[in-house]
């Protein structure tokens, strides 16, 4: 895999967010080496859609999410939001962007300042932007808190550590919602939660999406969670795009060997589905400092051939909004 290419992008005007050739690198100490966290990926998100970004650690999914927020600014590529280029924005334009795209983080507790009252935390965006009078701000904050299922009275007198992990994630969501953003980037929002609480938060996100007309980018390592909430899923590996497809299609008919491997590795809560060893992938994800040539998955790919080392595969269409970056996909175009 390794996929570069933009065959999967929708026509320019259709997408709310359009990312092209995104490049993010981090220096490794002072060695002069660099981590190729994200190298030339492209994707887009349609208005009202939920796009899932899925992959193992080191695949660059979180980095991609933060790069959209310009935290930090990517090293290359373009990110257009509603037709406006973000990477060249500065000053007032950048400030407006901040109100349109919001982010929710993985660790619900670490993403809330432990020394501030919950109401103040949720109100902070309004304070930063100087929106409304103090009374209007409080009214808005209480509305949003109720929408996510947090008692406003308790929020006014409590600090984050007095709430459970799931409630803290609700508070984070409230803070993201208070500015009425168009898009929310959710970076592993349920990975730190227990399964019973995870379901509450996933349901809440679905409800809020419908209620506020949100567009979501949902980043997670758990394919089952991503599949449940997303309309389309993009599978990433070592800073590259492997496969993009509608969620049900991706599960039913995976085309990329890595997607297949990922699906087979997921422990299914059903003993009738016995795991079979021969579908397992060997080895571990290589270092993003010196990624393999050609297709980056070839070192672990069960069907890799010489061509995979020499030539980087491009994303190709398989029909029905399904795209794969592989020289030898598991299924061909219909």
């Amino acid at each position: 895999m390794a996929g570069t290419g933009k065959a999967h992008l929708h026509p320019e005007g259709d997408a709310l967010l359009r990312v092209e050739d995104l490049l993010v690198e981090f220096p490794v100490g002072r060695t002069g080496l660099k981590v190729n966290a994200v190298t030339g990926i492209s994707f887009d998100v349609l208005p009202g859609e939920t796009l899932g970004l899925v992959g193992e650690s080191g695949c660059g999914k979180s980095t991609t999410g933060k790069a959209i927020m310009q935290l930090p600014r990517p090293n290359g590529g373009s990110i257009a939001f509603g037709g406006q280029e973000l990477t060249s924005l500065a000053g007032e334009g950048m400030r407006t962007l901040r109100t349109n795209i919001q982010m929710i983080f993985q660790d619900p507790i670490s993403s809330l300042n432990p020394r501030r009252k919950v109401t103040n935390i949720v109100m902070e965006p309004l304070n930063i932007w100087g929106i409304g009078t103090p009374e209007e701000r409080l009214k808005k904050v209480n509305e949003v808190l109720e929408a996510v299922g947090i008692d406003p009275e308790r929020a006014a007198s409590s600090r984050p550590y007095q709430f459970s992990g799931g409630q803290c994630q609700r508070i984070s969501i409230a803070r993201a919602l208070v500015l009425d953003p168009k898009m929310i980037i959710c970076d592993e929002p349920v990975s730190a939660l227990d399964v019973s609480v995870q379901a509450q938060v996933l349901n809440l996100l679905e409800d809020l999406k419908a209620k506020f007309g949100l567009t979501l980018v949902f980043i997670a390592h758990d394919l089952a969670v991503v599949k449940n909430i997303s309309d389309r899923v993009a599978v990433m590996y070592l800073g590259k795009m492997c496969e993009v497809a509608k969620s049900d299609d991706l599960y039913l008919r995976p085309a990329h060997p890595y997607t297949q491997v990922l699906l087979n590795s997921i422990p299914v809560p059903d003993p009738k589905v016995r795991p079979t060893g021969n579908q397992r992938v060997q080895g571990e994800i290589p270092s993003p400092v010196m990624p393999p040539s050609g297709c980056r998955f070839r070192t672990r790919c069960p069907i890799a051939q010489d061509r995979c080392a020499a030539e980087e595969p491009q994303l190709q269409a398989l029909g029905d909004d399904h795209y794969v970056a592989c020289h030898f996909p598991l299924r061909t175009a219909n």
Partner: protein
Amino acid sequence: MTAPINRPQEGTLLELRNLRTHFSTARGVVRAVDGVSFTLDRGKSLGIVGESGSGKTILARSIMGLLPKRGTIRHGEVLYAGQDLASLGLKGMRKFWGQEMSMIFQDPMTSLNPLMRIGHQISEPLRVHLDMDKVNARATALKLLQDVGIPEPEKRLDQYPHELSGGMRQRAMIAIALACGPTLLFADEPTTALDVTVQAQILDLIQDQRRDRNMSVILVTHDLGVVAGHTDEIAVMYAGTLAEKASTTELFANRKHPYTEALLRSIPRLDQPSHTRLLAIGGRPPDLITPPTGCRFAPRCPYAEDKCRAEIPELEAASADHSFACWHPVGSPRWQSKQDELVSTGVLSASGGIA
């Protein structure tokens, strides 16, 4: 102590009788494990499943006697091959650790000594417990590294933990745990820190080693998917007590406890279409200092009534390989009527699945 060769191959290895582990804190007594009984046969694997705070980790550590002395109160019996471990002190337990029972922890990076070579860390218990000489211990360590599937094992012997990848570290950790040939292996969330493709490898490895060595394995995890494919039996824990215990196939096919049912319904599944509504469990687990009277799941249970809130249901055997603690289990009349209510309000589909 019997030599490994003379160990019996079958029969009961471990039996817990009403084990209770409490911690005294300034806020009050935390009833982390509150009356757990079960048996585990030789060569079998048991999955202990629960959410955070359910007491599953404390239970495993209580069995091994790996809890700090201060503030810990342990009642009940832990019968290991007929001997009560609960009455043993530190000195008595030392004979069991490593040789009879050992443990794999969640984070291999913090459980390995960062300043000691891998080879040394594996051979140390061999030399201490089994009195091996240096050459012999190194040869055994090499064999162990091969067994756990570490490539280039000779090179790895002289490497430090930071030179290994996450999956390799967990394999090395398993090699250390297996070094003295334990009869009972505890694996406490052994794959939570690992990527999903590596997790599958490690779980397979533990399975293979269990079969090869005729070990018993207790796999502690929050993930029902992990235990489904890798254990013979499953014990579901909730708020310090056992909610349900059954063989793996029986539990998934014929779950009785509403908590088990709710857990399974709240997990997103790959074979469901996307945007399938999940049935979340409302509320959150109780405070273990003042647990609810009666059934501990009652405050979150859709089928609960007054009796559930007043009387504690005992863990009762429904069949040879299935026991649960509930007044109105799945399939009972009250469950059925509530279920019909949920179907009629559209929360559940008529097939019992989620609408």
